[in-house]
Every structure is written in C-alpha cells, then in structure tokens.
C-alpha cells in the first residue's frame, strides 16, 4: 500500500497519520500543499487533522482551494481512496468530495476526549475490520465538528449505507449523531474522530488500528 499524507501549514496530525499508515504496512509519501501532483501509483490519500491555514475564513476552506487539493479531488473523482480526519474531513467537505459541512460545536467549546463510536457499516474498505454494532473508543479533538447537511442529504447518506460511524453520546450537536461519512462509491471517508490517535498501545487505546489494517488488504490504485 502506498499512501500520501497531505501537509498544510497548520496541519498537526500529519505525522501521526503517517505512522498509523506505516504501522499497517504502507509506504508513505508526505505531500506539501503547494505540490501540484500526487505521487504515481498511489493507493490512498490521507488528509490529516490540524488547523490548516489557522482555520481562517472557515475550517478547511483555504486548504480546499490549495493546489494539491485540486489533485486530491481529481484522485477522488477517478475513484481513488481518500480519508480525511478532523480538519481533513472539513477540507474534503469544503472541496465538495463529501457532502455537508462542519459547524461550530453546539456547546461552543473545543472538545478533546475519547468518545464511543458505533460502527454503522462494515461495507467499505475502512470498516471491514469491524462488525456493524461494534462500539469503538476513539479520541475527538475539535471545535467545529457539528456535522450539518440538509434533511434530504442526511436521509440519502443513511439510505445508501454511507454513514460509517455515529457517536454513542453526541458531543457536538452533529445531525443524526454522525461522526463519519462515505462518498457515494464508499472510497472516501471523512470523520471527525482520530483513529490515528488510537492505533498504538502507547496511545492508551488501539481501536483505530483495525481501520488502517483493513485498508492494507483491500485497496486498488486509481
């Protein structure tokens, strides 16, 4: 598996994500936001957490219009795999690769804690290592994780089995308790919780490991 991790000014989970991919057996290339090309033969792009461009304007908005994001969008459009975590989810939503948007947490506070997630589908490359109904403990760390989309979009996501994870105890006001969603072809995952922060015994939890391990077996390059 060859993974690329995109790095923006203000990304701060890029190296954690790279370590999680490497632990699952991937070769990892770090890609700078000004780069205009993704590496050849890529299996997956990771858009990491952090505060790209200081969250100026809207979280993820400036990153979504950076040169590399045009490539990430093209990669996703031709059926490539991509995962956006936290700020990475905000970026993918801003690019339009994933529907909806992430609003300020309903309680207005930045929340940093481990939360329970329901695994809602196992029918995608990311969640094959789990079973539907599993509850996994994954950290969140965000100020703007309140998932919003119009009712029609939420119903479509639910109807098409594109909700990957929901919160067991909604921390941020997200509609439908949604913590992570998939693209229509289920090859792009956006999620607010940080599986890369629960991927090593030293993290205090390893429930995120199965996500990265599952990827290494099933990806096909686009």
């Amino acid at each position, binding site marked *: 598996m060859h993974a690329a991790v995109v790095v923006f000014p203000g990304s701060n989970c890029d190296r954690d994500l790279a370590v999680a991919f490497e632990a699952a057996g991937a070769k990892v290339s770090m890609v700078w936001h000004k780069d205009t090309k993704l590496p050849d033969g890529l299996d997956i792009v990771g858009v990491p957490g952090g505060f790209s461009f200081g969250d100026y*304007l809207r979280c993820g908005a400036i990153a979504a*219009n950076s040169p590399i994001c045009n490539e990430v969008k093209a990669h996703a459009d031709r059926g490539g795999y991509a995962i956006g975590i936290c700020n990475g989810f905000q970026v993918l939503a801003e690019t339009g690769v994933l529907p909806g948007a992430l609003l300020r947490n309903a309680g*207005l506070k930045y929340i940093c804690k481990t939360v329970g997630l329901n695994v809602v589908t196992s029918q995608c490359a990311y969640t094959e290592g789990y079973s539907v109904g599993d509850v996994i403990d994954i950290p969140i760390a965000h100020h703007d994780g309140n998932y919003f989309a119009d009712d029609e979009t939420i119903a479509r996501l639910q109807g098409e089995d594109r909700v990957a994870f929901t919160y067991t105890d909604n921390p941020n006001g997200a509609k439908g308790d949604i913590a992570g969603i998939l693209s229509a072809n289920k090859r792009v995952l956006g999620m607010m919780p940080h599986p890369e922060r629960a991927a090593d015994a030293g993290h205090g939890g390893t429930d995120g490991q199965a996500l990265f391990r599952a990827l290494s077996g099933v990806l096909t390059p686009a």
Partner: protein
Amino acid sequence: MKARVHVMLKNGVLDPQGEAVRHALGAMGFDGVNGVRQGKVIELDLADGTTEATVKEMCERLLSNMVIESYTVEMS
C-alpha cells in the same frame, strides 16, 4: 473600487454563537432580544472594472460555503 460581502448562516442552520450572544444580552438585562444571528463582513479592494458577477463567483467558490451560508454583495 470596493465590494462589501456579507456572509450569513442560512435560516434553519443552528447558529450557536448567535445564541450565546443572545443569552449574554439577556443576562445583561437587555430584554426583548428574540434572536441573534452572527455573520461576517468581508471587504474587497478591487481593480477597476471588476464585475459583480466576478465577486459573486468569489463568494460561491471561497468566501461562503453554499451548504450552510448565504451571501450578499454591495459594490461601491
């Protein structure tokens, strides 16, 4: 020339910041504030001849997120 862009959350999108401001105003004794919506104003200093259509394109591609926000443009 200049353009002033107002960006607001769409009706129906919860505005927790506006709600917090509304609560604070009530706590300060300002009665009768039934709602607060908080948005942003973006002022653009533009080359002469820039059209309103171009500014609208800026709004739709970057300055506002059409999923959750609406915008208005004032050219001057």
